[in-house]
């Protein structure tokens, strides 16, 4: 795909970076209305580059992959807001009809998500220092308020930097993969493996919401219902 055809201009990049900050803030700090979920952030990323349908596919795939990592307590989990935004923008920029671009976008999203998880840990350690002097903060509550607000701003800056660093490389990688030659057999093999990986993620994600191993018939029943639906629509 020629570089000139990539629909990412400097204004679009800037909007994505600002949005990355807002989405990162939503995940944990405030207001947790879940615009940071990959289903939403990837759709917004795709929509900004003119193709929300491509964005929502990447977002839904990342969503199923993330189900295994709920944000319990101090657990590490992918920073899904910037990750979905980057992945959705990358796949939409590539035109949204290439397996290579889809895989590149998913890998970019997954990578950004886990790099984001590492930066969240750094932020939490930074907050530890910010809120360390408890006696002084209790004596001057206005400084407690200032530091809490500073922590919120730093979280937004973290998300913006994460998006700024990865959105352009992800878009370029997805766009580059579109022009690569692929045989029909190779493409079919790749698609089959992606579907199987998706099934593996779904199976593991199911256990997060299931209290035991007895839920597997329901998982299968859902899959059968889905297959019937696909057959009827086809």
């Amino acid at each position, binding site marked *: 795909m020629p570089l000139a055809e990539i629909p990412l201009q400097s204004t679009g990049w800037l909007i994505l970076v600002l949005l990355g900050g807002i989405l990162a803030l939503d995940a944990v700090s405030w207001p947790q209305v879940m*615009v940071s979920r990959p289903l939403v952030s990837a759709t917004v990323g795709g929509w900004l580059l003119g193709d929300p349908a491509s964005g929502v596919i990447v977002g839904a795939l990342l969503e*199923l992959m993330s189900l295994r990592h709920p944000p319990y307590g101090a657990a590490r989990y992918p920073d899904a807001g910037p990750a979905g935004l980057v992945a959705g923008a990358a796949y939409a920029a590539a035109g949204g009809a290439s397996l290579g671009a889809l895989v*590149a976008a998913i890998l970019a999203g997954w990578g950004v998500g886990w790099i984001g998880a590492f930066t969240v840990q750094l932020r939490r350690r930074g907050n530890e220092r910010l809120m360390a002097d408890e006696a002084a903060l209790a004596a001057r*509550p206005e400084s407690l308020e200032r530091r809490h607000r500073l922590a919120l701003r730093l979280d937004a800056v973290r998300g913006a930097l994460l998006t700024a660093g990865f959105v352009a490389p992800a878009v370029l990688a997805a766009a580059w993969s579109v022009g690569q030659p692929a045989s029909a057999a190779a493409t079919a093999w790749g698609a089959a493996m992606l579907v199987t990986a998706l099934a593996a*993620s779904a199976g593991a994600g199911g256990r*997060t919401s299931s209290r035991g191993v007895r839920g597997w018939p329901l998982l299968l029943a859902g899959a059968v219902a889905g297959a019937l639906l696909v057959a009827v629509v086809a």
Partner: protein
Amino acid sequence: MQGSWNYRTMIGGGMAFTMLPLLRRIHAGDPVRLRDSVARHQSAFNAHPNLAGMAAGALARAELEGESAASIERFRTALRGPLGTVGDRLIWAAWRPACLLSAIAAFGMGLGPLWSVTLFLVTFNVGHIAIRIWGFRRGWAEGLGVGKALHETWLDRVPRWLGPVILFLLGLDTVLLSRRVLDVVEWEGFFGALAAVAAFVALVAFRWPRRTGRIAAALVLSMDHKPARASCSAVGGIRQALVALRVQHHG
């Protein structure tokens, strides 16, 4: 409330920040009592963010009624675990996945992308905001006796009801999304054979979820299998670069 989350006091700082406007009114003109109460509330505390309002309401009521520092501290310690566990099971493991998977199913059945996302945001936030309001009101109404609200049966029932729904939707979504992926490549292979393999892998992953990362990674990397290399040129490119480096090294 979670803005200054850290490994030492967790949401302690956020709890003090949230309660400050009320503490200032309760202890107006008494800076020593204000300092002591801020110090109490910024010490280590944790709760699920959607249920933290219940603790905030109860603690605000306790401060207003002049409860002793020792009983407030006991209450904070006793409430930490249950508020986290109940919230995690209710919101992170049940309500949020149910809303997400419903929206993905709606998209798979033909609802537009922006409508699907709107469906998720509206359904999730109706429940999320209702729980926040309910939690704060119960906390404020019950004060230090709010612990009994956590024994209400619906808090346990909702995750139990939603568990099977989530599993069913997960199976449904996997097939509907797979169809979308196969549509991207205009796949014309045997859908039945692929479905059987995928179902087998899903069940293995369901049984041994901790090993799934390796299974999924192996499958994605298997795209580098000779006939598939060209379909995932990024992986193929890395492999070729590694082979070239190895040849250079041996040379």
